């Protein structure tokens, strides 16, 4: 694990009206690391994700990617700098083929001018060929090669998840954000997903994920950041986290049902 952080989040704060969704949040993410963000509903996990991905601009604090400030940049500009994400609910491009869905992920790697496309520049053709090779590879990597000719709306929920993952990977990201990747998956699908995520991290990609399923998460994550009411209440290895009293009280204890009563903050 590298000592220089790839993503640095520093003193991040976001209010929605009178509600504080994220308060004074600071953590780093290193290349090749799998970092999990956990916490009860409304703790600010999804808000943090949206801040990092550029959906909202933070009220205070900063986010840096590879030393460059990215807070306040639009979503597509952050993605183009190598930060890709998946969504909590699958969002395939329903009118496009499976391969084209993944090729969309390559967009930042092959965005040529219309003129270059029209005159058929060699660079354009070379990039297109490379992108298609990469898409084919990724389809195999996530194991969707048998569904290549099928309508993407015909994919199962789990297959849709894998498609989203392959699509995000197609952009050759340095950081990948996974929003509850295991939710709704069957046990065998979860096992496969865990292996794929480990594989991604092993290639040096930093993985930041939100997850509720502790059985999936604890063996997978290198480090865990726990949020409650928008604040970081603990950070450490999974082993340390499960022993942390504050965490047990806030989240892992029996009181989970009560926590769901708190106002959901986006």
């Amino acid at each position, binding site marked *: 694990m590298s000592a220089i952080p790839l993503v640095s989040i520093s003193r991040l704060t976001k209010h929605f009206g009178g509600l504080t969704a994220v308060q004074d949040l600071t953590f780093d993410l290193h290349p090749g690391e799998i970092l999990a963000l956990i916490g009860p509903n409304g703790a600010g996990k999804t808000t943090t994700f949206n801040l990092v991905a550029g959906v909202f601009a933070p009220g205070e604090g900063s986010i840096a990617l590879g030393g460059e400030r990215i807070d306040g940049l639009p979503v*597509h500009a952050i993605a183009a700098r190598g930060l890709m994400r998946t969504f909590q609910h699958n*969002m395939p*491009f329903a009118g*496009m083929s499976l391969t084209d869905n993944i090729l969309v992920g390559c*967009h930042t790697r092959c965005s040529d001018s219309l003129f270059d*496309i029209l005159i058929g520049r060699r660079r354009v053709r070379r990039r297109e060929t490379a992108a298609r090779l990469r898409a084919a590879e990724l389809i195999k990597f996530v194991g969707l090669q048998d569904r290549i000719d099928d309508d993407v709306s015909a994919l199962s929920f789990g297959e849709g998840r894998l498609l989203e993952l392959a699509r995000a990977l197609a952009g050759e990201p340095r950081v990948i954000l996974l929003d509850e990747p295991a939710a709704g998956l069957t046990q065998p699908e979860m096992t496969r997903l865990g292996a794929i995520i480990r594989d991604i991290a092993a290639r040096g990609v930093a993985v930041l994920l939100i997850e509720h399923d502790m059985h999936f998460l604890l063996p997978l994550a290198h480090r865990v950041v726990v949020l409650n009411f928008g604040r970081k209440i603990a950070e450490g290895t999974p082993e340390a986290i499960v022993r942390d009293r504050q965490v047990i009280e806030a989240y892992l204890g029996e009181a989970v049902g009560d926590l769901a009563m708190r106002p959901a903050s986006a």
Partner: protein
Amino acid sequence: MRLLRDALIWFAAIAAASALAFWLGGYATDVYRKMLIWVALALSYNFLFGIAGQVAFSHFAFAGVGAYAIVIFAHQLGLPFGLAFILALALSAALAFVVALPSTRLEGFYLALATLAFSQLVLVVISEGGDLTGGTGGIANYRLPHVFDVTISGPWYTVVLVLLVASTLWMLRRLDRSAFGRACRAIRDNAVAAAAMGIDVRRIKVLAFTLTSTLAGLAGIAYAYIDNVINPPVFGLENIFLLLFMIIVGGAGSHIGAIIGAVFLYLAPFVLEPIVGHGFMVVFGVLVVLTILFQPSGLAGLVNRWPARRAT
């Protein structure tokens, strides 16, 4: 090898469509020429509506801008034809860009209404333009001038229209199969996910609108020399509905669908009119509703389905 085969298919199609121009005559030529304009407009409108997912009602307005601009520049103001042509095209493109910048921020059908208002304004301006635009009567009695001492007339002008359709199709197909086309379709299907994949949604939307509207302007320029007369009603709302219906019935998002839809709906009245009179528009309305309800991929979807069935 595939390249050669593709080139041969293009050549054969252009040759066949051109040959038809020499074989037809009189009224049939006029019908054929206007059909070619419809096909050219349908192709670019299909890219805008079917591929980029923008329901815009300004396509005929831009055709009108192109047509009026070429006639005003070349004949009312007497500029050299080459210069007039470039100016007319540039004006279409510039106006399209100016309309696209604010319009593409609007969601869904609000874009349709903003562009509808724009095209009505264009109509008001050309109807009230006095001597420059000829008012509600339009402009007539001008002729396609010599370009490099060559006079294009008769069936050769029809060949020009065939080449217009062919080059429009070639361009749009090429763009559709590139990262640009995929970005357009991705935005149509899910703009939020498209942005997360690094697509600059606004930029792609503006590009798609400007490009296709400029192509409409080009088709308008070509239209101006079919009958050597232009007048406002051609560029009004009636035709934009028909164009939209062509795309829906043919199959939105498919180039071949746009061609089939345009040819089918353009020629249908010639068959239907003797039977149901002016009621053919009712038939079109019913056809559109039925297509949306039961065959969303349109006629192109029917065509595509057949070989797929055979293969499995």
